[in-house]
């Protein structure tokens, strides 16, 4: 689709030709209207979940490519079974077909939030700032992001660590409907996140976190192959753990490779609370399984020979099979899918051709 110049965009976008915005959707993309001033300069990759015969309307003026299930099957062939169906986990197909260095992914029920001064937040710009400046995973800075204007490293922070590490992931947050699990939603249906915490911080090396895919940026060249969102949705015993799974894999690999993961700003406005009873059914197994998955990830040791993301990920899949396979046969399937994902990734992204090859359509 040819891009149409919008006369209302005042700011020169950063990384316009180096960043793709990946959006999974099953309904419509009306939310893009609110994001137009911030997103229009960028190329969108839309991954249409659900019924491929349905037409998803993309608002005028956006440059995009759209993939439905038929496209995914056509492009990946038998390997398409690693991409989830009827779950927003399918978005990771967008990461795989992108040829850009950076990805920003956002859910279709997320809107532009306002900061405490009332100003609209350009979430993408903040993610870009986060990704372009270093992270500090080796030692905690009590003033949070030391590279932010008006901040610095505090007394006692070793100078040899002040160059930081490359930032692989920028994890943003949400005002209004918080990202709670079903039990918490059921107990606190009215709770809204109203607290604007004006900080970006690096999650320390060795510490795991629950990564939410609603408002997420990452450096595809540094960590892309680890951003597999797992087997969820139709035909699977679990849902709503796609981003969690990716986040644990990503963090373990980032820690191993000396890369940083940031969390905090930017905020988006999360407008839709999904049905907690539906969520409970999807999450049910996950709530039990996470009690084993987390200790598994906390104990993972990747051998020194794993010097690339792909090698780390294949090694991780072996350990998943070995250690989690006994919990449920699902984990063997997942381990297989992790391998399939890497094979598909490498096929679509042969080394040295990160930006040059033709698009998949």
């Amino acid at each position, binding site marked *: 689709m040819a891009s149409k110049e919008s006369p209302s965009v005042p700011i020169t976008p950063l990384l316009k030709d180096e960043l793709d915005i990946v959006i999974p959707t099953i309904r419509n993309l009306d939310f893009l209207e609110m994001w137009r001033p911030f997103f229009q300069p960028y190329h969108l990759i839309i991954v249409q979940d659900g019924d491929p015969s349905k037409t998803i309307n993309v608002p005028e003026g956006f440059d995009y490519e759209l993939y439905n299930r038929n496209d995914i099957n056509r492009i990946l062939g038998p390997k398409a079974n690693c991409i989830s169906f009827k779950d927003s986990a399918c978005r990771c197909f967008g990461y795989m077909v992108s040829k850009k260095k950076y990805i920003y992914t956002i859910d279709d029920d997320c809107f532009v939030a306002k900061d405490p001064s009332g100003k609209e937040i350009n979430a993408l710009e903040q993610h870009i700032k986060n990704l372009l400046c270093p992270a500090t995973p080796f030692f905690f800075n*009590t003033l949070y992001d030391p590279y932010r204007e008006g901040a610095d490293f505090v007394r006692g*922070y070793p100078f040899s660590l002040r160059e930081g590490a490359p930032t692989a992931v920028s994890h943003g947050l949400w005002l209004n409907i918080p990202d709670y699990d079903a039990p918490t939603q059921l107990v606190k249906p009215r709770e809204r996140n109203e607290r604007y915490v004006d900080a970006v911080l690096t999650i320390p090396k060795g510490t*795991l976190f629950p990564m939410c895919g609603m408002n997420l940026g990452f450096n595809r060249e540094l960590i892309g192959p680890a951003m597999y969102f797992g087997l969820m949705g139709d035909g699977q015993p679990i849902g709503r753990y796609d981003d969690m799974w990716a986040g644990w894999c990503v963090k373990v690999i980032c820690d191993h490779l000396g890369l940083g993961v940031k969390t905090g700003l930017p905020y988006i406005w999360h407008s839709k609370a999904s049905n907690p009873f539906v969520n409970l059914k999807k999450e049910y197994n996950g709530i039990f399984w996470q009690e084993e998955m*987390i200790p598994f990830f906390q104990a993972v040791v990747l051998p020194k020979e794993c010097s690339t993301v792909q090698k780390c990920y294949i090694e991780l899949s072996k350990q998943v099979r070995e250690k989690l396979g006994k919990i449920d046969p699902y984990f063997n399937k997942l381990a297989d899918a992790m391998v399939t994902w890497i094979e598909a990734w490498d096929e679509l992204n042969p080394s040295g051709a990160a930006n040059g090859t033709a698009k998949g359509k």
Partner: protein
Amino acid sequence: MSMKIEDSEVDIVIAALCPNLTSFLEEWQPFFSRFHLIIVKDPDLEDDLQIPAGFDHQVYSKSDMERALSGSSINFSGHSCHYFGYLISRKKYIISIDDDCHPARDNSGALVDPVAQHITNLQTPATPFFFNTLYDPFCQGADFVRGYPFSLRNGVDCILSCGLWLNLADYDAPTQIVKPNERNTRYVDAVMTVPIRAMMPMSGINIGFNREVLGPALVPGLRLVGEGKRRWETVEDIWSGMCAKVVCDHLGCGVKSGLPYVWRKDVDAGNAMESLKKEWEGVKLMEEIVPFFQSVRLPASAITAEDCVVAIAGMVREKLGTLNPVYVQAANAMEAWVKLWKAVGSSKV
């Protein structure tokens, strides 16, 4: 698991490095008046302290230190006099704020009560084993996020609460020389647990802690050869804080960082160069200190802070002792501190 901390369980320790505490205490009166104050006079300070009426307080000075020390080699001069306050207290909790700090205002303009916030931090659980992206899950309007394992939602006791500073942030001398006009104006409305095994620089300017459990681990160990009276001419709290973090991690307790803020007074920026001469040694030592503390693994037999400090002192002597005599002194001071702590019966609350 949240408990209630009574006012009677708290001592506020103020280190007097300047004699006139009148305006400082009058300004803090609304937040301090309910509590007992332990005011420790820097043993190098000769002038008498000026303390306004209306405070339940006790002053400790050089003669008290000499009597309690009875031959021990611990040096309480300068900011290290805080530790005498921690030693001599018989309360379960300590809150300490430097005498160059004023009450801060939050984003709504309201004055911040750092004592109440430290107490809140200490009486609600910490969550060191898994990072919650909405920060403190126990504060109003927040909770654990999706993907946070339920078995970890009880949390553990928080035994150290590290507050922050608006206006003059706790920067080292080199940073102040490069950015003499930078002031911290960002009020970050969050408390978070510093994850297990993550090390951080603890600033002694604005802290609260469980003295009963952690007291012996806050140790006046590392004295710089050229140590001065300003915070950025010392690293004793950084050393002590790393020791405390390692001990907390080993004991399965938590450390929080973030709120409350205090407002720290401007100082003469021209002093930064002089300070650099005094602090430079500390800046260099951090390069050795941080990897050392990151590598400390305590034996399972160490079940109290005292045990842990003695074990760490041995490791300091063994691994750092040959690098610089200041570490040997630190190890000696740590062992002397534990002996002193036991002799004074300080753990008995």
